[in-house]
């Protein structure tokens, strides 16, 4: 048995030929339209707008969204999402995925909690790749403590007047709308609402956060709201219901991130194995040295465990029994695995891995954004402990 990206995946009896067909077609799309250019886009810190409509045409952007808005939801289960996360991880330029797929966190609040009129306006152009939507929760004054956010939205007639700022907002520079967490009431989680803010509104401005450790291709931004007037119809869900909207959003984001992180770890394994079989030191292949063999075996061991845990969580979700605590810890399991694999692959690759422009080097730089974004490891463990009633 080989240890390439596909062979190092444990069998999953849930997968049908339609799942495999999606993997094949998506891989063809990515190998032709994204992978050859992704490193250049990353170095340039920008990617072409034309990519979005192409991703829409192949069905990538619409995955899991209702047909009424241009998506594909009939017959779509968790396994399609897992495959998509894996394939998008395979070329290992996280910034491209983060920006291309950011509607995956920005749009669900609108789809799940927004008014029909709002969905009609926002969802079709976003799923067609013509317009963009981001999610804004984290603020310069605090991130993980969502219940303490300080951007305010004060009711004034049939408008809210929004003041404050948001930062580390993926896709923030390109966004036409931002699903934004704002304080409409008193302190704590019960005073939070979600508001759809159009970025052409007066008083809205943004600046790029373009010098990052990884995710260079992503148009991450800081957003500023200076007396931005937003119609009350733009409320996503009910007033003061924002915390619930945010929390339900997190589970699918974390599953997607965990699936991607496992796949990124598997890319590291693949690269390490290829190099270890080619490179010769002290008269034999690297792969024949016990220290290297053990590194590779340990990478596979951790990847196996993460894959099995992923499958268990996806199966629970499919059965309608997804557990936020288990999902939070899965995210930790995945980021620790990714970190381990990136480290060990880098040790195996040596100097060649340290040079810019290879997958392991990029993954190494993108460990932290995965271990922190979408809920840091520390917050995840804390959340799990609370979920388990400790």
């Amino acid at each position, binding site marked *: 048995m080989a240890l390439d990206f596909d062979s190092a995946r444990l069998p999953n009896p849930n997968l049908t030929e*339609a799942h495999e*067909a999606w993997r094949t077609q998506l891989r063809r799309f990515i190998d032709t339209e994204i992978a050859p250019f992704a490193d250049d886009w990353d170095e340039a810190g920008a990617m072409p707008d034309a990519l979005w409509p192409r991703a829409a045409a192949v069905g990538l952007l619409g995955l899991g969204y209702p047909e009424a808005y241009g998506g594909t939801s009939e017959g779509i289960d968790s396994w399609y999402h897992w495959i998509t996360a894996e394939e998008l991880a395979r070329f290992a330029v996280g910034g491209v995925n983060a920006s291309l797929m950011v509607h995956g966190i920005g749009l669900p609040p609108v789809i799940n909690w927004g008014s029909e009129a709002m969905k009609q306006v926002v969802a079709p152009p976003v799923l067609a790749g013509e317009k963009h939507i981001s999610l804004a929760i984290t603020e310069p004054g605090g991130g993980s403590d969502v219940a303490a956010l300080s951007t305010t939205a004060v009711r004034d007639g049939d408008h809210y007047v929004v003041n404050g700022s948001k930062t580390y907002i993926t896709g923030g520079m390109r966004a036409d709308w931002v699903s934004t967490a704002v304080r409409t009431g008193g302190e704590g989680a019960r005073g939070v609402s979600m508001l759809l803010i159009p970025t052409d509104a007066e008083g809205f401005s943004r600046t790029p956060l373009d010098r990052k450790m990884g995710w260079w291709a992503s148009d991450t931004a800081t957003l500023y709201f200076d007396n931005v007037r937003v119609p009350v119809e733009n409320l996503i869900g009910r007033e003061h219901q924002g915390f619930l909207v945010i929390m339900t959003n997190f589970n699918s984001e974390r599953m997607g991130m965990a699936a991607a992180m496992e796949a990124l770890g598997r890319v590291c394994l693949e690269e390490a194995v290829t190099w270890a079989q080619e490179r010769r030191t002290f008269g034999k292949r690297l792969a024949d040295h016990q220290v290297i063999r053990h590194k590779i075996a340990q990478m596979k061991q951790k990847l196996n465990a993460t894959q099995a845990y992923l499958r268990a969580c996806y199966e629970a979700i499919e059965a309608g029994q997804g557990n936020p605590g288990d999902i939070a810890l899965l995210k930790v399991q995945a980021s620790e695995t990714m970190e381990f694999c990136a480290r060990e692959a880098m040790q195996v690759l040596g100097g060649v891995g340290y040079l810019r422009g290879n997958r392991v080097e990029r993954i190494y730089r993108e460990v932290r954004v995965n271990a922190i974004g979408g809920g840091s490891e520390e917050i995840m463990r804390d959340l799990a402990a609370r979920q388990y009633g400790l």
Partner: protein
Amino acid sequence: MKVLVAVKRVVDYNVKVRAKADGSDVDLNNVKMSINPFCEIAVEEAVRLKEAGVATEVIAVSIGDKACQEQIRTALALGADRGIQVETEGAVEPLVVAKLLKGVVEKEEPQLVILGKQSIDGDNNQTGQMLGALAGMPQGTFASVVKVDGDRVQVTREVDGGLQTVSLTLPAIVTTDLRLNEPRYASLPNIMKAKKKQLDVYTPADLGVEVTKHLTLVKVEPPAERQAGIKVESVDELVDKLKNEAKVI
């Protein structure tokens, strides 16, 4: 006009194939399988003919065990209207495949049959030609351009000396070369729709064909590993080595 397209399930072109340890065959255990790239080009050409209003129905046929339904579904996702599987067990030789395809041709009476020029596993490049002979149909192989014009089809063929254009009377057989077209991606909505398209299964007996074997696979082994090269100090040394070691001049 009805178009029949043959598709074959093969090891994905990205997979680095390995021989089984006992040399009995290529190791297919846990290996990614796909539609043969030339067959994919054939499907694309048929679908384009339909989109251009030339073809009215595109039927994808594959011969093999149940797993090959996966490749038929891919063809359906790419735009074929319905599928046919001729269920066989184990490896089937080109002549048998051609006989089975002839059976399908007799059932469906397509005006045009498009096949890949060869499959990337066996690299035989025989089935299209054999089908032409068995069915008594004219053939345009290694096609880089296909134009249907009334009751004829013009096929531009990639031959050693350049391009040759032949005009065939329909019904005819075309085998595709690499430059005929660039196949589209099957989109997710089309993959989901393909699940509901009609797929009929025939046995060789339904087509009046007996599956026979004429070939025995003796041994499969990897190509010899290339020896590492060396750097020579001078032109004289190079000439000397070419003369006396490699014995090529």
